C-alpha cells in the first residue's frame, strides 16, 4: 500500500532552513580550534570543491565522511538506487530568475519572450534590463554510501572527475602543475640561489617559482602546490596585506587541500602556523582566509583533474586500439616474423624520437617497448621463434638503423636515448627544462645535482 505524505508548507521549509543554517558561523570558528579540525575541514572542502563553502559545511554537518553526492534522480539515471529508509542530505539549491526587459509599452517582460527585434535592441544596450536574481530552495542529495553503487563505480558515474583517490603517476601530476603555472602566468625556473634544505622558493616580483633539485618527484609536486599558491595569492601588489605567518599558513592550507584530493601523502604538511595566526583574529579575518584558500584550491584541483582525466582517456583509447588491433590480426606462426620486425622497428623509432623535454614522447616509447616485448614473449612461449632468432632479428634491425643513422636522421641530429636511470633523474628535474636554454644554467643545474 502506498503511503501519502503531507506536503511541507513554506513555513516548514523556512524552519528547516533555519535549523540547517543555524550555527554556521560557529562552524567557521570550529575549523580553527585545532590542527586536526582544520585538516578535517580542508580535506572535506577539497572533496566537494565544486560546491559552495556553505553547502560543503552543510554536507559535512549532516553526513561526515561523505564521498560523492547526487540527487535521487541522478542516481536513478545512472542505473543505481538509493537504499530504502535513507534520509537525504539537505543542501541549498541556488536558482536564478530569468532576466527581464522593459518593452515599448513600459511593461517588464521575460527575456525569453522577446521578439527578434527586441533581442537585437537588448544586445545593443538600448533596452532597460533587470539581471537574473539569485534565490534558493532546499534540496536533498544522497551520498554514494546511501545507494547500491560501489566506490569502484565512481569513474563511470563521474567520468570527468578524479575520484579514485591516489595518483601514482607523478609525471601526469607534474603535467597538471605545469598547466596551473601556465594558466596563472607563473614560470617554473631553476633556483636563483642555493636553496639548502628548503624544498622550493617563490620570486613574487617576477612571478616565478623554483624547486630544490634535490627533491624527489613527490616532493616536487607538494612543493610546487605550496609555491604556486604564494605566486597566485601573494603577489607584489597583495603581499603587504598579509603577515609572513598568514602567507605560509594559506600556502600550506591550499597545498594540503589539493594534495588530499589527489591522495598525495599529506603527513608532512605543517599547520603549525595555526596557533600563531589565530590569536586576535576576527570572524571576518578567518572567513577571508578560508575563502581565498577555497578559491585557489578549486582552481588548482580543476586544472590538475582535467589533465589527469585527459591522460586517463588517452591511455584507455590506446589500450582499446591495441586490443582491437590484436583481435583483428592476432599473432600467429605465419605473421610472427613480420610482427616482430614491425614492433621492434616501431620501438626503436620511438626511442630515437624520445626527448627528455617531452613527457608524451617518453610515454610513446614506453608503450611501444611494452608492446614489442609482449609480442616477443608470446612468440617464444608458443615456439614460433627461438630466443636466438629473436635476438638475431633485433641485431639486424639495430645494424640497419646504425647504417642509416650515422648520428643523423632526416637531416637532424638526434638526442642520445637515455638509460632508465638517466630517465628517472631527468624526470626528477623536469622543472628546469623551460629555462635551461643557456649553457650557464645547465652548468648550475649540474652543480646542484651533485
Amino acid at each position, binding site marked *: 500500500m502506498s503511503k501519502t505524505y503531507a506536503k511541507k508548507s513554506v513555513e516548514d521549509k*523556512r524552519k528547516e532552513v533555519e535549523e540547517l543554517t543555524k550555527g554556521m558561523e560557529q562552524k567557521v570558528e570550529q575549523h580553527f580550534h585545532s590542527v586536526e579540525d582544520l585538516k578535517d575541514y580542508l580535506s572535506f572542502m577539497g572533496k566537494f570543491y565544486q560546491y559552495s563553502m556553505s553547502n560543503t559545511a552543510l554536507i559535512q554537518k549532516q553526513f561526515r565522511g561523505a564521498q560523492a553526492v547526487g540527487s*535521487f534522480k541522478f542516481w536513478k539515471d545512472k542505473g543505481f538506487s538509493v537504499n530504502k529508509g535513507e534520509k537525504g542530505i539537505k543542501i541549498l*539549491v541556488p536558482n536564478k530568475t530569468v532576466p527581464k526587459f522593459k518593452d515599448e509599452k513600459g511593461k517588464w517582460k521575460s527575456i525569453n519572450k522577446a521578439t527578434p527585434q527586441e533581442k537585437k535592441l537588448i544586445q545593443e544596450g538600448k533596452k532597460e534590463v533587470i539581471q537574473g536574481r539569485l534565490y534558493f530552495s532546499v*534540496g536533498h542529495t544522497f551520498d554514494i554510501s546511501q545507494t547500491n553503487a560501489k566506490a569502484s563505480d565512481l569513474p563511470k558515474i563521474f567520468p570527468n572527475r578524479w575520484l579514485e583517490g591516489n595518483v601514482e603517476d607523478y609525471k601526469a601530476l607534474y603535467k597538471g602543475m605545469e598547466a596551473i603555472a601556465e594558466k596563472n602566468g607563473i614560470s617554473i625556473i631553476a633556483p636563483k640561489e642555493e636553496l639548502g634544505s628548503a624544498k622550493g622558493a617563490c620570486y613574487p616580483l617576477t612571478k616565478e617559482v623554483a624547486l630544490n633539485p634535490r627533491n624527489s618527484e613527490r616532493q616536487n609536486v607538494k612543493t610546487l602546490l605550496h609555491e604556486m599558491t604564494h605566486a597566485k595569492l601573494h603577489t607584489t601588489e597583495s603581499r603587504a596585506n598579509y603577515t609572513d605567518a598568514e602567507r605560509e599558513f594559506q600556502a600550506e592550507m591550499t597545498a594540503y587541500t589539493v594534495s588530499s584530493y589527489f591522495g598525495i601523502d599529506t603527513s608532512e604538511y605543517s599547520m603549525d602556523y595555526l596557533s600563531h595566526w589565530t590569536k586576535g583574529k576576527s570572524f571576518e579575518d578567518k572567513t577571508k582566509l578560508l575563502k581565498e584558500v577555497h578559491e585557489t584550491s578549486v582552481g588548482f584541483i580543476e586544472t590538475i583533474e582535467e589533465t589527469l582525466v585527459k591522460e586517463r582517456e588517452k591511455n584507455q583509447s590506446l589500450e582499446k586500439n591495441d586490443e582491437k588491433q590484436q583481435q583483428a590480426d592476432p599473432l600467429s606462426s605465419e605473421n610472427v616474423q613480420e610482427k616482430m620486425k614491425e614492433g621492434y622497428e616501431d620501438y626503436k623509432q620511438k626511442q630515437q624520437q624520445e626527448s627528455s623535454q617531452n613527457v608524451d614522447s617518453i610515454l610513446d616509447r614506453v608503450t611501444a617497448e611494452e608492446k614489442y616485448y609482449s609480442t616477443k614473449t608470446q612468440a617464444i612461449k608458443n615456439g614460433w621463434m627461438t630466443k636466438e632468432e629473436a635476438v638475431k632479428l633485433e641485431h639486424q634491425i639495430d645494424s640497419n638503423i646504425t647504417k642509416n643513422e650515422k648520428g643523423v636522421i632526416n637531416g637532424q641530429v638526434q638526442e642520445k636515448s637515455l638509460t632508465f636511470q638517466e630517465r628517472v633523474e631527468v624526470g626528477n628535474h623536469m622543472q628546469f627544462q623551460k629555462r635551461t636554454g643557456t649553457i650557464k644554467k645547465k652548468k648550475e643545474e649540474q652543480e646542484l645535482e651533485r
Partner: protein
Amino acid sequence: MFFNKDLVLASIKAVGEDHAIVQYQDKEVEVNLSPEEAKEFHQYVVHQENMLVPMNIKTQKLFVDLEEPWYEQELEELKGISYQEEEDDNE
C-alpha cells in the same frame, strides 16, 4: 550565515504594492520596495512559492550579492533535485 553575519535567507510572507513582509530567525520584517520592485517580486512569489531570498539584515536589501561563488546550478549530479522525489520514494 553564508560566512557573513549580516546575510540571511528570508522567506516571503506577503507582498504589497510598495513593501514585502519577510521572515527570518523568527522575526517578521517589513521591507520597503519600489512599486516596480514589488510587482516583479510578486511575480516571483506566485511562480515559486518555495523561495528563500538572500537579504542583508543591516541594509534590509533583498537579493543581495552573496560574495561566494555558487557552482551547484551547473552540476549534473544535482539535476532534478527536489522535495518530491525524496518524500515519495524514501521517507
